[in-house]
């Protein structure tokens, strides 16, 4: 929409497209007082390893889901496992939730990739929080749930492998 991009002479506070981006970067991304750290913002704005669209298309060896949309947060973790090494080859996730939920699930997916299943099971909520450089206290318990989903995915894989 060219109208929205055009500089607005009527309002001095409104800037061109180029400076808008700059304002956004200064306001939200940079170190202005904000409840989230820069690493949380980075993982929220550029999440890693998410799965977009119909996840039934993703070939997985195990999956786990935790949380509840009624509470405002839900995470699904899907893993591919290298049977030789017992390592997580690939992780994909989906999340319904706030910035902290998206960022913590993204962070967890980075932490989990390449680890053996036993190592992955030892990932705690505290480790995810540490990786993100901290989370607001009131966000921690409701939004850092991914490790439980990952544990459920590993359990799901091991049950399937045992049968």
């Amino acid at each position, binding site marked *: 929409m060219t109208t929205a991009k055009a500089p607005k002479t009527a309002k001095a506070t*409104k800037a061109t497209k180029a400076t808008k981006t700059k304002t956004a970067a200064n306001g*939200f991304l940079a170190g202005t007082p904000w409840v989230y750290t820069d690493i949380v913002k980075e993982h929220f704005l550029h999440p890693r390893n998410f799965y977009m669209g119909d996840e039934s298309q993703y070939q997985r060896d195990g999956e786990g889901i935790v949380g509840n*949309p009624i509470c405002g947060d839900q995470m699904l973790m899907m893993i591919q496992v290298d049977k030789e090494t017992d390592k997580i080859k690939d992780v994909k996730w989906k*999340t*319904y939730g706030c910035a*902290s939920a998206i960022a913590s699930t993204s962070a967890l997916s980075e932490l989990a990739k390449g680890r053996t299943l036993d190592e992955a099971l030892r990932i705690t909520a505290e480790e995810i929080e540490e990786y993100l450089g901290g989370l607001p206290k009131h966000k921690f318990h409701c939004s850092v749930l991914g490790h439980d989903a990952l544990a459920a995915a590993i359990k799901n894989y091991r049950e399937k492998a045992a049968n």
Partner: protein
Amino acid sequence: MIYLDYSATTPLIEDAKKAMISAMELHGNPSALHTPGHEAMNVIEDAREEIAKLINAQPEEILFTSGGSESNNTITNIFAGEKIAVSAIEHPSVLESAKLRCEPTIIPVNEQGIVEDIHDYILGTKLVSIMLANNEIGTIQNIKELAKTAHESGALFHTDATQALGKIKIDVKDLDVDYMTLSSHKIGGPIGIGALYIKKGVPFQPFIVGGHQEHGKRAGTYQTVNIAGFGAAAKYANNHQIWDIYDQKVRPLRNLLAERILKEVPFSSINSNLETALPHLLNCSFKAAEGESIQLYLDAEGDVIVSTGSACASGDGKPSHVLMATSGDAEVAHSSIRFSFGLDTTEADVDHVMEYLPGIVKRLQGISTIKIEEEA
């Protein structure tokens, strides 16, 4: 920046800023009888007149407070220990303070947030408190009718007009209310100042005691600068009849955004009733996309500023009590976004929002665990 969070707070208007800077030169305590004191008191009384005029009250019926929350707390304090009735969608400063001090009966609302028949809830109550317009979805109540019912039952009537002030024409005599809460920073005045309309002759008790200011109705040295700003904002509203501008200029823009959201954003719904809600406010929900994430993406990527009823943004971990009362659906509340327009919002702003919003919502829906039906 496209600021669409005017219901949270409005930018200070130029007139208010000028009046405040000018009032900063006054150094007398307004209660003092010397010349500098009188000069400061004159500024306060001028402001009081403008605020009274804005709601068709007498100046002596206007009490300055620190804001809407103090005004509401003052009301529940008058009725401490008494049975009162309040609606389920009141501001927390009514709901929480009523629970703290009074014996409140909570009056439910219908799906559109409207308080219907109150007869069953007000028997034996000393006060009924129902907001003129809701802060989250904009529902305007039929206060005239509700106040009449309350009075017939022997109860006094308070209405919180914080959100309604300036957006619609308000006349306390026509509404026939006994108390009304007002706030400065929703009409372009400064934060930290508000008022309470107290009809002549109704019961009153000061909330803050220990000083003779405001004829003994509220202790504390007058906030000359803030009062001057509030007065200037009220004067602007009176002189420009801003409720007409909201109706004629802002309402069509709000309706345009609603129309475009329904058309261009998949699985969107409108929580505000466009016929009966405040003209500048639009509350929507986006299935499978969480409100705080939408809000922060709009901020970071589109430089669009809005608010949400999601629990994640509330600070108390609970989804909006208003959307819970109207929809009963936590997902609707978690996935809600409130757009609130100002007098200078333009069609280009609506275009700008719609440049970013559909993509952000679709992306969040794409990575969501909540299933949505594929579009045909």
